[in-house]
């Protein structure tokens, strides 16, 4: 058993996902390797369109055509999800890996009571009496801080924050080892977001699940996750333990994300964010994909600049557990 425990819970090994169009393939996730240990919170941050939600879809194997996993392995407890049959996947999904989407409003059925939606979910996975399933639903609602009487409510009778809690309770219902959360708090306001994150942290301590937490808001991850990976234009450009990433981020893109938050204390200095917009993945820039927006790519003709515009940087370990893909960090 101990040999199993040291293995990562989830391991992405050089995973690529393509969108297959009539005349070409667009690579949305390019050669991504990541791993999540048991009970770990891994934050994945990047802008819209960087491929982070596609990656989440790949982990759950819920991508629909034209998207397809075109390479690599997704190992969950050592078993490759990409190679599994539909029946095998059905057994893994929700019981072992569950998912929380961004817009809880769209996940719940508006014409069904919350409790009945739990009953449906339990019945899809277990033989269970309706009364038992409803009782269990009540327990789960209490777990996420909602009155158990709410099993009788319809989704529209709940606030956005409560609906998001309901969806989280559903994701926890079968006690999965891994929960993939795709922007779970983005639609909520700060106070509710904070409350939900704190509840999640308490639940995680108690139930011991791992989380793949996907967001565009890096400031959230620094506090909340154990490790952070930064994704840009389909690839991981930097990954490190949270505190290392916060204090010693090396990739210019990570630094750009970090300097996109106005401070709450100290002097107010003009911020620039990151100029430009993410590249069109159908025609990614040559060389380093970040080079058109990179403050370190000055255009002055040098061996470094030639490298930046011609060769793609490789993700390399620069310190224990800290990986960066950047020519500038490596030096010419």
């Amino acid at each position, binding site marked *: 058993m101990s040999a199993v425990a040291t293995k990562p819970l989830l391991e992405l090994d050089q995973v690529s996902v393509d969108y297959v169009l009539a005349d070409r393939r667009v690579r949305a996730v390019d050669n991504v390797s990541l791993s999540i240990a048991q009970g770990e919170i891994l934050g994945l941050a990047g*802008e*819209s369109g960087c491929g982070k939600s596609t990656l989440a879809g790949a982990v759950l194997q819920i991508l629909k055509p034209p998207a397809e996993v075109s390479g690599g392995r997704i190992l969950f407890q050592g078993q490759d999800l990409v190679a599994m049959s539909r029946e095998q996947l059905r057994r893994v999904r929700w019981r072992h890996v569950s998912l929380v989407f961004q817009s809880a409003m769209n996940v719940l059925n508006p014409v069904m009571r919350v409790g009945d939606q739990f009953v449906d979910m339990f019945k899809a996975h277990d033989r269970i009496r309706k009364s038992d399933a409803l009782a269990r639903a009540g327990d789960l609602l209490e777990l996420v801080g909602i009155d158990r009487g709410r099993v009788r409510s319809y989704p529209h009778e709940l*606030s*956005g924050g409560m609906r998001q809690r309901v969806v989280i309770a559903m994701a926890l219902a079968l006690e999965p080892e891994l929960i993939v959360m795709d922007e779970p708090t983005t639609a*909520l*306001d*700060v*106070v*509710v*977001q*904070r*409350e939900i*994150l*704190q509840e999640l*942290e308490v639940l995680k301590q108690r139930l011991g699940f791992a989380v793949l937490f996907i967001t*565009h*808001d*890096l*400031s*959230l991850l*620094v*506090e*909340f996750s154990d490790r952070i990976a930064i994704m840009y234009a389909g690839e991981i450009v930097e990954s490190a333990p*949270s*505190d290392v990433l*916060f204090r010693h981020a090396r990739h210019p893109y990570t630094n*750009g*994300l970090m300097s*996109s*938050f*106005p*401070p*709450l*204390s100290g002097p*107010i200095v*003009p*911020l*620039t*964010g*990151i*100029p430009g*917009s993410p590249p069109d993945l159908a025609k990614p820039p040559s060389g380093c994909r970040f080079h058109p927006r990179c403050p370190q790519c000055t255009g002055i003709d040098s061996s470094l600049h030639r490298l930046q515009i011609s060769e793609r940087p490789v993700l390399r370990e620069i310190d224990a557990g800290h990986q960066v893909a950047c020519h500038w960090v490596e030096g010419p």
Partner: protein
Amino acid sequence: MSTLEVHRLGKRFPVRGAGLKREMLDAVADVSFTLSPGRVTALVGESGSGKSTVARLLARLYAPTDGTIVFDGHDVSDQRRRKTLLDYRSHVQMIFQDPFASLNPVKRIDYHIARPLQIHGICARGAVDGRVRELLARVGLVPPDEIAQKYPHQLSGGQRQRVAIARALAVEPSVILADEPISMLDVSIRIGILNLILQLKRELGIAFLYITHDIASARYVADEVLVMYRGRIVEQGPTDAVLLDPLHAYTKLLLSAVPNPESGLRLEPLVRAHLADESDLELVEARPGHYVRRPA
């Protein structure tokens, strides 16, 4: 440039029942402030605090049940005539939260910006195209000729929000009401929109009402902050006075909810302050220019 003064504004909505049994909800009550040229006033609070209702009252999408809205010396709060309202709206414009929903998906960008020019008769027919391009360039959408011909779905969220701002600018307004203009955008492009607001306030002297639940962004753009809770303003004053030295428990709660890597790397417990029903409390001047709701 004109100021917009709001005095003891209130809005009640019927929530259930009918006739005498009808229950009313005070969505907004006792809200007073002034929007002055070249200043950004931030209105912060959580969802349901009534901040969007304030914006809609000011845009006259709703009629207020109490109080007055004085623009340029005239009380516009009980104006019903279409022509007067149209005239008012050419001075007070609104930007909405969702740039994906606020643009017509089957119309090109130039259509969106030409519409207000035509409706309000701002410029001669022959001059519309040139003005549209000028406005696009003004909000940083370059090259304007190319952008003008695109459809909304061909632009990113940040670009779409810039289109919404250009559309608001078309009528040369003195006041812009921006309701959560950055909350749907990627973190990396939010700053660009905030910088654009600052630039427009500086260069055109526009008065902004910036509505947000993101208190850190309010600190970045605003000269003055109003904190709203359950339909009432609970604290109000110069930005740094309110945000660096808050007096009201609710302001403190909002501040503690902001992710702040500087304050240590672990989540700190958020204390849901026990906030009393404050409907009979008064806004009192605790320090010069800094008001807080407390027993008078």
